[in-house]
């Protein structure tokens, strides 16, 4: 079966565009970083000792679960798949090492999150361990991501100030 040349060209162009897009995801993906912090903060507020009002807590829980199982997985998953090669090939040992740890933590946190979503904390030992894994992995993950991406982080105050100045100068 022959394929029209125009289609082949079109398919190739699409692939290329997609590759470029995917390739571009690896660099300073602010949405992915922001999402990670949102998940971390919302998860933190669900922590029992903080005793958030139930009227807020219930919505926060739903948001944390839904976002975690959908947008977070897609966005951060795409970013991570693209960013991996940077981690592996990074010249600076610090970025390579923290990147690898982040990879594992991300995996742990996400998988445990899915377990909690579908099976929950029914009180058996496995569920309790997984709950702890989710909690402690996130506690390490968020600050580590911040440190790892410090120079480009959305939370880097210096960056934010400079960005604002640039906007002012342009105006």
């Amino acid at each position, binding site marked *: 079966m022959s394929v029209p040349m125009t289609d082949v060209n079109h398919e190739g162009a699409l692939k290329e565009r997609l590759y470029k897009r995917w390739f571009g995801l690896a660099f300073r993906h602010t949405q992915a970083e922001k999402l990670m912090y949102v998940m971390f903060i919302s998860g933190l507020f*669900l922590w029992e000792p903080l005793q958030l009002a139930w009227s807020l*807590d*219930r919505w926060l*829980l*739903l948001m944390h679960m839904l976002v975690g199982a959908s947008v977070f997985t897609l966005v951060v998953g795409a970013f991570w798949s693209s960013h991996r090669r940077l981690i592996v090939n990074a010249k600076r040992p610090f970025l390579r090492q923290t990147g690898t740890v982040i990879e594992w933590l991300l995996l742990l946190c996400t998988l445990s999150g899915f377990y909690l979503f579908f*099976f*929950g*904390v*029914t009180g058996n030992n496995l569920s309790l361990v997984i709950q702890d894994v989710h909690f402690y992995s996130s506690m390490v993950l968020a600050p580590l991501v911040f440190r790892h991406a410090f120079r480009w982080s959305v939370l880097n105050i210096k960056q934010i100030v400079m960005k604002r100045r640039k906007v002012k100068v342009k105006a």
Partner: protein
Amino acid sequence: MSVVYALKRLVIVGLVLLTGQAMAFEKSSSLIFSEDRSQIISANFDAGSVSILDRASGSLLKEARIGRDIRRIALSIDQDNKNAFRILATDYLADQLILLDGRSLNVIKRIDVPSRPFGAVYDQRNNQFYVTSFEQDKLLVVNVEGKITSELKTASTPRGLALTKDSRLLVTHALSGEVSVYDVATSEPRLQRIIQLVDTPFHPKQTTPQGKPRLLDNIVISPDGNTAWLPHVLWSFGHDFQFQSTVFPTVSIIDLEVGNEHERVTARKQLFKQINVVENGNKTRIVSNPHDVTFTADGKKVLVTLAGSEDLMVFDLSRGQGRKGNKKRHRRKKFHGGAKVTQIYRNVPGNNPKGIISTGRDVFVQNAMTLDLVKFDAGKPGPFSKIKLAEAHFASLVAEDPLSPQMRLGKTLFNNANEADYPGLSMAGDFWMSCNSCHLDGFNFTNRQLMADGKKNRFENAITGHVDTHKMIAGDPITAYLDIIQKTQGGMMDVALDQPPLEAIKMMSALNEYVRAPENLPYLSTWLRLDDDQRYTHPEEWVNSAKCADCHTTIYDQWADSNHGMNMDHPFYRFQEDIAAKEEGEAFRTLCRGCHAPQAIINNKPEVFSEFGDMYEKNGHSLKTALEQHRPVNERGTGCLFCHRITKAENSGGNTDLTVNLKDRPAYVFEDSANPVMEWLADRQINAQPKAHRDSYSNPELYQSSLYCATCHNEFTTGMGANINDNFGEWLASPFNRPDDAQQHKTCIDCHMTEDATHFNSVAGQSTNDGPVKPNLRSHHFVGGNYYFTGMRNSEHKKLSIDILKTALTLDVEKQGRKFIVKVTNKNSGHHMPGGARRQVWLEVIATDAQGAVVYQSGVMNQGVIPADARRFIKIGVDKDGVPVGLRFWRYVKIGLDTRIPSGETRQETFDLPEGVQYPLTVSTRVLYQVFAKKLTDQVRAAFPDENIPEPEVIELIRRTAVFEAQ
């Protein structure tokens, strides 16, 4: 003693002077002056507000609606800034303390406290408040920031508070007639002593004051600090329950000698003695419900509000002879009770005078029902001046009464004993008593004290309350109230019960509105309450118990086939409920449904049951079907949500005296959705973070308390207060109630909620699917003596039931000559045996001679019927003529027979064996048990011919066979 006393006083006065704080006596009050006395601050009771009024003009300067029922307020002063002060208010019905800014009345903090906070007083030395928790028997210490710093268990029912200058805190105990004295020299109160006010002894003449001191709401210290005055009533149930012999107004005097605080018994102010103002016609002026006290500025007069008869009573101390007077100057042979009443200001304007304060010649009386202030002029100093009305309506305490006119009228009538208020239709005869004289604050836990104090020899009279209530109140409340008012309070005497005037009907309808208030008896016959502003819920507001089975499968399965499950409206129940409705009126069904079908009451489904009730239905099949069809149901029995959302067990005697709360259940997003996807999502949320779910359905402290079960397993007759079933009281008196001995102590659930119904050991299990294995899973079989219904559905249940029955008793036999003695001991049951009213337990004795021929028998059933002469363990209620009331058990007046075996006790039965029989003699003795008698079963069969009602099996509980060789 007097030297020591004087020295103690000197030291204390010295200490007070050293601290540099000019401290006044403090008392818990609903009406107080501001620090500079230019304003009056009022706790506005059921208006739920606190007001500030200008003392000179009476104008309402500020009012803040802060809660439901503000009873007392206390004022704290900031020593550094005299203009800054705070008010602590007790919200009696909301179980809260509210800390307010004294100027703006803005709420600074709300503090949840143990139930029924009442008294509040400020201790300037320690800069803290003291608060009484009336229902939970607690004294709370609260700092000025609104934090509870200490919680002390007290004697029962603490209510009024007063603080002496030398740091002694006096606490009155409203229903036990006690006064506790605490040392509050340091910030942690220490109990010094409890003074028991004496009972005024029984007197054969009914109108002579007698009885137990009750309703001690307030205590006030005299200006010289030597005595405390305590207005209260005496409850006397020794005579017939009626107005001239039941409640007597009294003021007791406590001697406050340091270290020797005691009641001055001979100084007690009683009706016809110290309270004896004679009216025209040589008749003593009767007053009722003394409530609060104040002293005039010169300390010579004591003014007492009378909340029932609506009077103001004046004692003139200058005319009385105190015990500490100069004995040499006036020698008297006999002490005559000290100061006497010199004036009774009859008919204080407004309704229900409670709080009272005075300064200079101004006296202010606070009306709790009309929510206004009356101003009196105390007159010039001197024994002959009289108190005069200065301004009838000096001030309004509230801008608007939040209660509806109907509810306000009802509540006013409940508290009213003033004959002048409703000429010809007065609530009380001759001002003697109001409903509130006994039913303190309405219908609540104080009921238990009424039943305890009213208890007599139950074989002569089991009634503790109203005699022969008309239609058990619920069947015809209007006539019933009129009847009660006539018989008990001596009011409405000219009203014909069969044709009451319209005005009387209106009044009684209003009274009924108050009786049915959320905090009282919203469903009238039952004491069941819904913690909500609305009286009824919709079935959709409930969670179908079958839904719980998704995650709690084991527990659901146990419950569904148990006697607490969906089948509690079985034909036997329906038969009995129909009799009740026929006899007393349809509305009387609620008495039964409170426990058997509480959802039907709360969902306002009063009609005769026509669905469910299938005794044979397994595993709550109908519930599951309804759940699949997304159809709301009025569950029978006590379902998951009902039991697990009970927030309070009240201990008022049973009859479902509990509160269920649906509205405050923390629901997850989409939890109540009928959409399967949303439901699935809600379940995921519950599983992901189950704490809120677990906490909202679990109250371990309540479940461990036997009181929880007592709410249904104790019953009393409505209005008449005769105890029908007292499993809780039986348990309290049993050897299993040993809170100090963990090995011996067993509560209801220790025996009835374990799968080991033989040894009552803990059995491990999972209450949640994939949940943790709990070492002591509380089984929801609710194992009990009714093997009949559970056996129709589940053989495991039946086995457990029979197992627990067989552990209850031990049996010993012996023979002395021809006497055959049987001893049956209730060894393992925490209540009487049998525990239920319909259970048949009896002895069967069969003696056979050497040839095997039966020579003697007793208790052998004949065609399913237990012979009349069998030795039975049974309680029989009878009417006033001694005729058994049978199925009309709520109409019993006294106990005709009670041969049940109390826990830990032995009953001995003796049988005369025949003479001239051929030995050896073999005697077989059995204790037999049948859940329902054949007669009852036949009656139910006749009532429900379409139902398949089997003959209840006879269970052999225990057997002994003894062979006697010779006579």
